[in-house]
């Protein structure tokens, strides 16, 4: 068998965005598995709900104010996140620098309010199973939040220090993709934590 040059790839680009990039697929893989973890936690919540006649059992439901405020912040953060993603895909460094900082500011504000959200649950994790699952749901989302805030912060630093390459823009774009997941996963969890005790 003689090797024959059949496909010449030298003219192909050296990075690509969205589902063409392997980073997107890797991110999607983790989103799938973490989304499954959220789904399992939600299923556990609903299961425990069936085991306890009164919900919430003997404690007031969570206070709504901080939760709603924080929800608003998180949903609003989708805007700078979108702009960051768009700028990164245009490889517009100036725009990326601006919007990634704005997104980061939103994320940090959310994280700060998150601390008070734990207090507004009105229950401790070691009081009963209701308290346990409330804290776990909130904690689980917070862990994802923390990792993505860390990731965003590192990328923001890199956007200022360089080195700036096409692949770095792919990183920013995929980080924004993950932030959408953080937002989307919060919606059902928010509903369960704050409205579950009132409605279910």
């Amino acid at each position, binding site marked *: *068998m*003689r*090797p*024959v*040059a*059949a*496909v*010449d*790839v*030298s*003219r*192909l*680009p*050296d*990075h*690509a965005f969205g*589902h*063409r*990039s*392997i980073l997107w*697929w*890797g991110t999607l*893989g*983790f989103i*799938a*598995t*973490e989304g*499954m*973890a959220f*789904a*399992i*936690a939600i299923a*556990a919540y609903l*299961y*425990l709900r069936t*085991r*306890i006649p009164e919900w919430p*059992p003997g404690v007031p439901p969570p206070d709504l104010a901080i939760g709603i405020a924080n929800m608003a912040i998180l949903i609003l953060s989708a805007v700078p996140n979108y702009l960051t993603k768009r700028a990164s895909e245009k490889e517009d460094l100036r725009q990326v620098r601006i919007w990634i900082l704005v997104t980061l500011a939103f994320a940090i504000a959310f994280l700060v309010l998150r601390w008070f959200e734990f207090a507004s649950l009105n229950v401790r*994790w*070691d*009081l*009963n*199973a*209701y*308290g*346990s*699952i409330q*804290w*776990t749901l909130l904690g689980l989302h917070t862990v994802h939040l*923390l990792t993505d805030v*860390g990731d965003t912060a*590192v990328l923001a630093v*890199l956007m200022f220090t360089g*080195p700036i*390459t096409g*692949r*770095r823009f792919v990183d920013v774009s995929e980080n924004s993709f993950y932030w959408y997941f953080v937002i989307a996963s919060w919606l059902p969890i928010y509903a369960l934590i704050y409205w579950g005790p009132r409605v279910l």
Partner: protein
Amino acid sequence: MSDDVLRPMEEREAAAKLTGAWHEGEGILAWLSATGHKTTGRRFVLTSFGFFIAAGVLAVLMRLQLAVPENDLIGPDLYNQIFSVHGTAMMFLFAVPVMQGVAIYLVPLMVGAREIAFPRLAAFALWMLLFGGLLLFVSLLLDMGAEAGWFAYVPLSGPEYSPGKRSDVYAQTITFSEISAIAAAVCLITTILKMRAPGMSLNRMPLFVWASLVTAFMILFAMPSVMMASTFLIMDRLIGTHFFNPAEGGDPLLWQHLFWFFGHPEVYIIFIPALGMVSHIVEAFARRPVFGYVPMVLSLAATAFLGFGLWVHHMFASNVPQLGASFFTAASMMIAIPSGIQIFCWLATLWDGRLVIRTPLLFVFGFIFTFVIGGMTGVMLAAVPLDLQVHDTYFVVAHFHYVLIGGAVLPLFGALYYWIPKVTGRMLDERLGQLNFWLMAIGVNLTFFPMHQLGLEGMTRRVYTYPPEMGWDRLNLIATVGGVLVALSVLLFLFNLLRSLSVGRLAGPDPWGSPGLEWATSSPPPEFNFALPPVVTGRSPLWEAGEEWPVVTGLKLDQREVLITSVLDAEPDHRTEFPEPSIWPFLAAIAVGLTFIGSIFTPWAVVAGSVPVAITLIGWFWPKPGEE
């Protein structure tokens, strides 16, 4: 086309340049930093094989204890630790990772790629596996081995009935191994979907690659369940949550649902890659492509889907509603259909092939012989009434060892005999291999066949001894003899392997005349896999190749550049540069590992550990200085 023919000179020059770009280096630091998929895959298999041997020693100890009634060789406390660690290690530290290790090694070769996607993540997965396994086994030596079974039902594994740290060790071992499995699964999925050789559309993918893809997806969706369960467990034990405390609104059955929602797919996660291996062995030694490629692939996918709908059949004896039980009976019966389809397709392949009987094919014969017994008893267990009799007896022990050893370990050994020449460049001894096969096949059947009868006669599982008047002693003694034979066969394999490393016949690139791309490169393959990455035009490239062997050109040779292709048809899409070897995955694994181990003792470890974890992860992703 004639001017596109590459001269041998070009290939050699390319190889020389690629070696410079892909070499992993020497020395301890380079050794710890290595991220190449062949290094990682080899270490994955060796690590999990080490745990296999350790867990196998525990199995022999159990068989010795049970050889005679009222034996006082091992007391109940140690016995409980032994069987728990045996099960935990075999499932989490051997069966899943060994299959993933083989996939990490072979899949990039089979799809004609230079490297696995996210090689550093794969290396991280390896270290997590190693540290998790060491945690379990060192803990056993420290008298804190898992003690509530690999299934760790609460409340027995909970804070009140499992004092000390034994069940925390179990929970964190799971966390280690799950993170490892998920990380490896992400690498494999991305490699398979985005890094196939040009022309290898999905319908030309080798069956082992399909099996690995299906398995990796199952891992992504099954493992979170047990991770949540073990997190609930360790929180119950450590910070006093009430997930499983019925007095405060929790429920022990929640654990069972979460555990088996993972635990049943787990069986298929172990078994599906083995089916892929069988297809390759059958194809090579029957000298024809596997009959029914499309039904085979669909069967793998169907098994994966159905695998998620069976979990309650482990819980028929608990308080599940009857209608639910009936649904799960139907699903459990149905899953036998895709397995049946594959068995029939292999039989058809054998029926029409020209059988060159070598050790790997013998293991496939052994697989069909034993696995079908396990499948048949599996069908019996799907029937609720019968399940209620034999559930949690030695009948079930027999069943799942037939499925797991027959369905996964025998094919695995066949695969090792088949692919080790590719890895080491040397052949294993054929005569020792055949002896190995017979010892193992006879040993396995001698060990586990009598257990069916023991179960029918009322011997329950997880007992450390049994009274002499029950009449279970004779069959137990037979099983023990069989267990010793299996142990001997594994020793024989190790001897064969070590022997071949020095005196084994040189294998050459394609010792079996196989069709796959992994045989199109030297044995062992160079660090960059292919000097000239192949282009694929069919399902059996080496069998279909004519005079010309189409290859990819235009990838940079002085960088770690790989080709990314499209998901469905594997059309070239873009090139990307892969990262250098790095010490950071190792350091990150140490940081994460210390955090997890610390969290067994204090929840503050999570807070304290987040700092080194963050540092190592930033180090991992920080661009190298020279990058522009």
